């Protein structure tokens, strides 16, 4: 079998040639970014935004930082200004039922003008109504009515009094009413004198008094009726005077809004209300001033004397808007989405009115587009349900959460729902999208379109240029130094490194943005006119150093042999695997020792990690695959009379993943065959039951991790790493690694099959079956078969002797 050649330096890194760019610096670019490489997502966005049917809202899915929001914003920036500007919405008092404020729809800009007009109207009413009611004409009429009542009452009682006096009877006011008594010389007859009168005289007086009493009772019975009539007359007079004063003002307003049926209907109701409550405008001016800051809703609720009741609460004001609104709600709490009804405390009681209705993001975005981060939405209690309800019913219904959950028990409102016409765009990770799809049946009804953003872009001219435009736009937006083309090329290379694939660029634009800012910082420190490739490199290195504490600690422990990693000798059943650590988002690789020991047994491979529950399921699966491979290769003609144990030495925190399964297999083959493995190698790659080596992740970090240790101990020229051949495309190694390879001090071997790998590791060919079905005896496989044969024999002998002993 031909062994794979060491990889040449060119295979270890895909360079981006600055000369491929036609510009000198990014200053020459216009800073406008197209969503390159996201055609599928853009198509979905175009479709969703174009279709005006229910439920075709959008979920933009993809990892954070991939520019979902900016891509959508750019898209909307093109289409939203050309869409019609939505209407204004106002809440006004419902004079018939103040608990259910009315919603008014007005053309854009008319809401604030109606609000101003209403404030002016109220100001005018404060002048006009008092003037009308202080007019001599009114005073005289009112006085006439009251005096008529007084006269009516006075005359009736006066006549009775006169009649009484004619009969020497006095009508006297008592503390609680009236009384009649016989009179003599202008005074009431003394009781003793009265008793001296003859019986007939007393009877006559009695009779007279009884008659008068009856007459008085009948007059008193009339008084409430007269009072009612008087009140009615005064009320009618007031209504006429108020109406005369108010009508011209409201008629003027009605003319201004005659084309708006809802407003004119409201003005009719308002006119009636003002006329009914004219007396509130007669209060002192100081009271009026108190009212406008919006601090007297209690009076409104208690019976309607506040002037808040005539205000217009402009919920949506599009007077300064052009086109459809694009709203991004950063805190999508329920009250921020559908609005809220605020309360104020008055005398220890919470009160509210329609002026305290607060708009939500749905109101602002109505007629346009609303962007929400899906995770934040789901984290806000009831917000997702409220959003779905609004989308399903196509109405924004403001409900107080506190009321719904009986957290407060006070007067609240039921504002008239406002019709909703909005495109909602949720931005979120893929996992969220898939979870919602599975668990929420409403979700697929309401968010029918998914814009799946790519994590990676192809490294073609368009991709590279996209990076250049991104850098240009960041520089222009944030006022940074521009990048020369060398620096752009270096950013492109780093984009490949982040993507973990030399043929792809990362679409995680947040990382690129961070790198741009950091590189610019170093260019500024060096007082360079433009950011250069070395500044980009400086930023990359600095970031690595900033996050290197744990890596350095591990390496230090290894160099001190606290962690045992052999990079020089040869050992049987021992090999260097490569592990990835990812603390705090920064990944690095480091070798770990894997050992395998064999003994007589029943053909099982014991994964010690799994036995102690430190191995994850994927790792366990990898180990079981090894059993399959060993069984197929060596257990056809004889039983596998061994038990092998595998362990990651000095592993204290668990192992997951199958990227070490080929490594474990090499250790097993070494242990079974007795062929020592060169410890100057480290190995990564998973393996299948046929011994084919499969791709793994983090190949660059793993190679660099082993390289760093070898370099610290001194590169011998023998050291190298075995990687799956399918990972060669992912290689974007550091320049020092490439330099060492170029100088023959380090090597990277692409391996496709374990037979290649074991030969590189041991220097002994794996061996192929000959025509008689045997492996060459000096090959790894041959030695393994021989060893297994010996073990089987020993086991057989042991079994036989045990049986004889038992007999």
């Amino acid at each position: 079998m031909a062994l794979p050649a060491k990889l040449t330096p060119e295979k270890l890194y895909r360079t981006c040639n600055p000369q491929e760019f036609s510009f000198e610096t990014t200053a020459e670019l216009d800073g406008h970014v197209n969503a390159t490489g996201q055609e599928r997502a853009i198509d979905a966005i175009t479709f969703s935004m174009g279709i005006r049917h229910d439920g075709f809202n959008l979920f933009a899915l993809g990892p954070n930082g991939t520019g979902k929001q900016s891509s959508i914003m750019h898209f909307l920036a093109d289409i939203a200004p050309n869409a019609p500007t939505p209407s204004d919405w106002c809440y006004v008092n419902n004079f018939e039922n103040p608990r259910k404020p009315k919603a008014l729809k007005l053309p854009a800009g008319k809401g604030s003008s109606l609000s101003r007009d209403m404030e002016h109207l109220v100001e005018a009413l404060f002048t006009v109504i008092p003037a009308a009611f202080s007019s001599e004409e009114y005073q005289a009429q009112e006085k006439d009515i009251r005096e008529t009542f007084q006269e009516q009452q006075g005359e009736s009682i006066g006549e009775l009094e006169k009649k009484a006096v004619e009969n020497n009877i006095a009508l006297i006011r008592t503390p609680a009413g009236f009384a009649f008594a016989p009179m003599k010389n202008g005074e009431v007859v003394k009781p003793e004198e009265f008793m001296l009168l003859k019986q007939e005289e007393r009877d006559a007086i009695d009779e007279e008094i009884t008659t008068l009493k009856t007459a008085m009772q009948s007059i008193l019975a009339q008084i409430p009726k007269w009072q009612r009539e008087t009140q009615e007359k005064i009320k009618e007079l007031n209504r006429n005077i108020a109406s005369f004063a108010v009508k011209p003002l409201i008629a003027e307003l009605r003319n201004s809004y005659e084309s708006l049926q809802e407003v004119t209907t409201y003005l009719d109701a308002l006119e009636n209300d003002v006329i009914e409550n004219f007396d509130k405008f007669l209060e002192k001016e100081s009271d009026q001033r108190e009212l406008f800051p919006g601090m007297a809703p209690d009076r409104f609720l208690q019976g309607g004397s506040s002037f808040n009741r005539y205000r217009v609460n402009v919920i949506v004001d599009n007077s300064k808007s052009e086109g459809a609104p694009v709203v991004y709600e950063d805190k999508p709490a329920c009250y921020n989405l559908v609005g809220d009804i605020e309360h104020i405390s008055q005398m220890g009681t919470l009160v509210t009115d329609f002026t305290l209705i607060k708009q939500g993001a749905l109101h602002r975005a109505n007629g346009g587009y609303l962007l929400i981060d899906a995770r934040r939405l789901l984290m806000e209690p009831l917000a997702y349900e409220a959003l779905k309800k609004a989308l399903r019913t196509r109405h924004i219904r403001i409900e107080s959460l506190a009321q719904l959950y009986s957290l407060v028990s006070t007067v609240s409102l039921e504002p008239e729902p406002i019709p909703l016409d909005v495109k909602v765009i949720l931005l979120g990770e893929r996992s969220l999208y898939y979870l919602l799809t599975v668990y929420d049946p409403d979700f697929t009804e309401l968010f029918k379109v998914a814009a799946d953003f790519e994590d990676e872009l192809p490294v073609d001219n368009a991709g590279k240029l996209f990076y250049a435009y991104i850098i240009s736009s960041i520089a222009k937006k944030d006022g940074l130094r521009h990048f020369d083309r060398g620096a752009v090329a270096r950013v492109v290379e780093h984009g490949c490194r982040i993507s973990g694939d030399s043929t792809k660029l990362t679409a995680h634009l947040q990382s690129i943005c961070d790198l741009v800012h950091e590189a610019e910082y170093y260019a500024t420190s060096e007082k360079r006119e433009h950011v250069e490739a070395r500044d980009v490199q400086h930023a990359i290195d600095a970031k690595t150093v900033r996050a290197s504490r744990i890596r350095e600690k591990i390496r230090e422990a290894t160099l001190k042999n606290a962690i045992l990693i052999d990079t020089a000798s040869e050992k049987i059943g021992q090999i260097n695997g490569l592990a990835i650590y990812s603390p705090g988002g920064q990944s690095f690789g480091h070798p770990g020792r894997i050992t395998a020991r064999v003994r007589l047994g029943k053909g099982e491979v014991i994964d010690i990690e799994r036995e102690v529950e430190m191995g994850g399921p994927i790792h366990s699966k990898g180990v079981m695959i090894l059993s399959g491979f060993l069984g197929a290769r060596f257990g056809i003609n004889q039983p596998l009379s061994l038990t092998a144990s595998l362990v990651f030495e000095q592993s204290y925190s668990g192992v997951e993943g199958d990227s070490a399964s080929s490594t474990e297999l090499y250790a097993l083959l070494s242990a079974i065959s007795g062929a020592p493995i060169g410890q100057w190698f480290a190995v990564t790659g998973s393996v299948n039951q046929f011994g084919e080596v499969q791709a793994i992740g983090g190949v660059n970090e793993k190679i660099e991790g082993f390289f760093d240790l070898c370099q610290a101990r001194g590169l011998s020229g023998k050291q190298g790493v075995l990687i799956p051949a399918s990972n060669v495309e992912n290689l974007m190694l550091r320049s020092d690694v490439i330099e060492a390879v170029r100088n023959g001090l380090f090597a990277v071997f692409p391996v496709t099959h374990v037979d290649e790998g074991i030969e590189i590791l041991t220097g002994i060919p794996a061996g192929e079956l000959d025509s008689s079905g045997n492996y060459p005896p000096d090959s790894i496989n041959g030695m393994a078969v021989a060893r297994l044969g010996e073990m089987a024999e020993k086991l057989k002998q042991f079994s036989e002797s045990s049986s004889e002993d038992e007999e």
Partner: protein
Amino acid sequence: MKSNLIRHIAVALDCSPHSIASLAAAAELARWMHADLRGIFVEDINLLRMAELPCSHEIRIYTAEAEKMELLPLERSLKRQAREAESALQRIAEELMVEHSFRVYRGLVPAEVILAAHEADLLVLGRSGRSPSCRKGLGSTARKALAEGKRPLLLMRTGFTAKEWPVLVLYDGSKGSQQALATALDLAQPGITLNILILGETPEEALVMEQELSSTITLPDTVIEYHHLPLHDGKTLARYIRLADSGLLVLSDRMKLPVETVHNLINEIDYPVLLV
């Protein structure tokens, strides 16, 4: 020209709206003139006698039902009214820091009030008291005070206060009107408007009187306005006063106008009147 002769002010109290206005005005004047305030409450002997009569029944205003009057409940009721009157007096006097006293009398109300106010320099009364017919004119006590010549006499009514009120003085050059003007000037608090209605036989005479007055009256912080009216009959005067609507009317019944005319005028107009 300030005489400041009022040291004791008597006020008749019967808990009627006019009497409450009288109390407020009297207290305000007492404060302004540093006088003491004497509250007078009279238990009406007629009522008490009536309660002892076998034929007397009280007809309740709000139910129109008739109930036999009893002496004890009536006395209790009168005492309660007296207590209310006293506490109202006490409250306002303490608020304005005015020296005050209160006495309860029993007898015929008009006579007792006039008698009790004998030593006072000013008697303040409601234009009408708790009259049965809610009449517009003067009540019996006011009529008696007017007739018996108790001067100065202030007849108050609801809707007016002594604080910052405008004053209208009738002046015809007579001694009585000079005294009325002097009293009005005594009452003139800073910032008020003092209207002097000069009743001249001819416009020239009125002008002369105005010139004389303007040369003698110097009252800082008081706006003095002069008005002329040539006619002397009561009806024209009453019409003028209503039109002027200038609050307290100060006049004398010892003017060139006949006493009956003055008394009829007081009876007819519905404004507070200070008769000097």
